[in-house]
């Protein structure tokens, strides 16, 4: 085995050359076994640098290439392509990271140079064991699953459907629209939320390329990029969608009302057979089985009695359905939950009746909401003369959520504005830690509120209490806070307190991430492939994320992400086939003892066991290349391509080339 290795040491201007003696490394590398040529060059990633590699492959007949420069996450692709242009299989290349991992972490030239040699030696030893590999072609099914029918999911679905691709949109509530449908106005333009959202909802409902599955949940996901099999449970609505005209007579005639804790945030009521709101899409109502008198006590059937359609659309016998279909890609847009402010007892929510959450207030100011847009106290009639809005409830706080929830400053400003608009004489206090308004037109909106004479108090509220200490506090809620700009504790007596709770990951986001086999961060938000350069892809091929399930964000950002995820999917569908990194495991049937240890270890269920031959097999398309099975196989029957045992063992030997080994010396 005599490979001809070319070694290239990059100066990266002075980035590497300042701390690593590159000439010395290059000279020394030239003396190593198998090395045919060793060079150092100012910028290996420049076209001239790349040409050096190409020419050496052609002229000196190199069979392996090592570049010592920056992180492979920067330029591995660049140099692989250069090798390919020179006529070498791109996988016969290896990179040594002597910048991020070496020259930038120390000023000690001797140590840095020594480490550079070790990393280069490791790459040389490794690369001679490399095998030519071919990328794996995978066909892409042109259908797409979008999970979640909020504004992010709607944007994603419409984008793809308009491009001519079929979309399954699955939503667990009876209607699409998500949180945005509950809002009154959107900041900073104060557009009516429903007015801009409902046309999109209707478009989804009517689009020939969209199969809309509401009151449904994804139960099972099998497969891989290009070819997922999805099982969806379509819960029984007890209303036949084929015949229902959505006339609403059943809702009108239903004799039972219950508090609507979902759409109206507990402020309003709905019937037991209901549509969350008049513009709901689809228009079909749903029966709330838990509260339906017929289901609980066997009597009533008022809805059925009055249903005017023929045949009758109310079907008490309806059962859940399981639908199965194939898709090539999945976009998750499962949204967020609002932080539960009862977790901060000192803010009094649930105990002091005139403390409201942001969502309650949104419903209250909504003209279509339970108070027809009137701002009132919990008694539903008196109007507050003073209101305090508390920012950062459950965010920027290590006791709850450490992150900034991104949207609360802006919606709190919006609330202040809406109160000024409805109650011009009311005093409005905004208590904030820092005012965060980084968006187009956002800072201008803040200034508008300053003009409107909102009282801004810089300080995180300590507590809200009804314990009065002076006559002007009697009968009021007292907000105790340090006004940090004057360095004084203040007590603000107000009639109403609005809490601005954080956006949190959905309560079941971990379960969802396991279902779709992708990652979730500490806070429960889905993890993007790269926080800057790949914000809508995930570490699992074929699964993309959009909207607040990835982190707190506002409407424009959610729309942008929804559309971006769709663009990614559309480009894959347009390619028809994609090439995947061939870093995959495979099992040598001869060596496999059939012990099945690997079967359960695989996080992707990519290993099947053939009972007849008593051997396991890796389904290449399912394998993601983590190598867990390779490390576990007691018979060394599994090979992880590009990370084989011999490659890694040689790398270890190389990286420790300079360490004295007495037992080897004496052997």
């Amino acid at each position, binding site marked *: 085995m005599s490979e001809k290795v070319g070694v290239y040491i990059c100066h990266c201007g002075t980035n590497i050359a300042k701390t690593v003696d590159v000439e010395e490394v290059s000279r020394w590398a030239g003396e190593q076994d198998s090395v045919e040529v060793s060079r150092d060059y100012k910028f290996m990633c420049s076209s001239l640098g790349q040409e050096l590699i190409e020419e050496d492959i052609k002229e000196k007949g190199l069979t392996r290439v090592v570049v010592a420069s920056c992180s492979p996450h920067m330029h591995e692709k660049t140099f692989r392509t250069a090798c390919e242009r020179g006529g070498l299989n791109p996988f016969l290349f290896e990179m040594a*990271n002597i910048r991020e991992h070496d020259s930038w972490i120390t000023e000690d030239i001797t140590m840095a140079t020594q480490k550079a040699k070790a990393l280069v030696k490791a790459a040389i030893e490794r690369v001679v064991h490399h095998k030519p590999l071919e990328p794996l072609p995978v066909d892409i099914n042109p259908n797409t699953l979008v999970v979640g029918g909020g504004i992010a999911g709607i944007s994603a679905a419409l984008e793809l459907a308009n491009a001519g691709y079929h979309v399954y949109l699955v939503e667990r509530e009876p209607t699409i629209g998500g949180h945005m449908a509950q809002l009154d106005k959107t900041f900073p333009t104060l557009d009516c939320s429903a007015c801009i959202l409902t046309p999109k909802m209707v478009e989804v409902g009517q689009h020939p390329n969209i199969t809309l599955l509401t009151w449904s949940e994804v139960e099972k996901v099998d497969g891989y990029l290009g070819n997922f099999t999805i099982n969806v449970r379509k819960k029984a609505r007890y209303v036949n969608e084929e015949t229902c005209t959505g006339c609403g007579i059943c809702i009108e005639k239903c004799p039972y009302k219950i508090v609507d804790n979902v759409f109206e945030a507990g402020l309003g009521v709905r019937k037991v057979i209901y549509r969350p709101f008049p513009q709901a899409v689809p228009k079909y109502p749903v029966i709330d089985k838990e509260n339906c008198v017929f289901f609980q006590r066997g009597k009533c059937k008022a809805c059925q009695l009055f249903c005017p359609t023929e045949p009758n659309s109310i079907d008490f016998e309806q059962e859940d359905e399981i639908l199965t279909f194939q898709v090539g890609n999945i976009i998750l847009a499962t949204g967020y939950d609002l932080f539960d402010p009862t977790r901060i007892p000192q803010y009094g929510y649930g105990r002091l009746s005139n403390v409201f959450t942001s969502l309650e207030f949104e419903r209250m100011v909504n003209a279509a909401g339970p108070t027809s847009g009137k701002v009132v106290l919990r008694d539903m009639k008196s109007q507050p003369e003073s209101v305090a809005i508390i920012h950062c409830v459950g965010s920027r706080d290590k006791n709850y959520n450490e992150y900034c929830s991104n949207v609360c400053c802006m919606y709190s400003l919006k609330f202040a504005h809406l109160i000024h608009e409805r109650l011009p004489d009311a005093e409005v206090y905004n208590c904030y830690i820092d005012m965060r308004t980084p968006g187009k037109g956002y800072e201008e909106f803040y200034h508008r509120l300053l003009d409107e004479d909102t009282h801004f108090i810089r300080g995180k509220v300590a507590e809200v209490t009804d314990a009065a200490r002076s006559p002007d506090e009697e009968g009021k809620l007292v907000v105790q806070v340090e006004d940090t700009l004057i360095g004084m504790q203040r007590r603000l007596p107000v009639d109403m307190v609005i809490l601005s709770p954080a956006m949190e990951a959905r309560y079941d986001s971990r379960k969802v991430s396991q279902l779709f086999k992708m990652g979730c961060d500490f806070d429960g938000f889905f993890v993007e492939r790269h*926080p800057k350069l790949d914000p809508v892809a995930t570490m699992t091929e074929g699964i993309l994320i959009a909207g607040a399930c990835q982190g707190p964000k506002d409407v424009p950002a959610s729309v942008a992400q929804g559309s971006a995820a769709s663009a990614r999917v559309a480009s894959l569908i347009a390619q028809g086939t994609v090439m995947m990194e061939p870093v995959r495991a495979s099992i040598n049937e001869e060596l496999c003892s059939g012990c099945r240890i690997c079967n359960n270890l695989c996080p992707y269920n990519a290993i099947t066991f053939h009972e007849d031959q008593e051997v396991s097999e890796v389904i290449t398309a399912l394998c993601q290349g983590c190598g*867990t099975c390779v490390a576990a196989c007691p018979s060394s029957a599994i090979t992880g391509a590009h990370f084989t045992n011999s490659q890694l063992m040689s790398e270890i030997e190389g990286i420790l080339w300079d360490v*004295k080994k007495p037992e080897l010396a004496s052997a």
Partner: protein
Amino acid sequence: MSEAFEPVIVGFLCNWCSYRAADLAGTARIHYAPNMRDIRVMCSGRVDPQFVLKAFREGADGVMIAGCHPGECHYIEGNIKALRRYMLLKQMLRQLGIEEERLQLVWASASEGTVLAEAVNQMTEQIRTLGPLNWHETVLGGGNGRVKHQTVEVTQ
């Protein structure tokens, strides 16, 4: 060699979190001990116990395995498998008479350059205090290849 002892640590860094954490530490110009020489693996779950033993046998004074935080593994739970192997390995190394500090498992996410740098610094200092491993002396007991510690009790 009369110079001061410089420990050599072999680091197995997972491609998605810890390798990127090391990239970030470099990009942020965080200075830390250059004593850790890293090998990229796709997942900490790929680290075969053999690799660790091989590194010690080849003369490493310490081995660091670094992966994503539990629950944040790119491959769902490869890091948990790494953790289990690490526990077993530690037990085995103890029986071979190798100090605990010589094998360390670190969780560092892609954004935690400082965490990784700190861990490397700390480990380097610990091993500097311990001195060279001398696998040959410690484990093989003098050179003829026979294992010295044969009757070690397996403790829970």
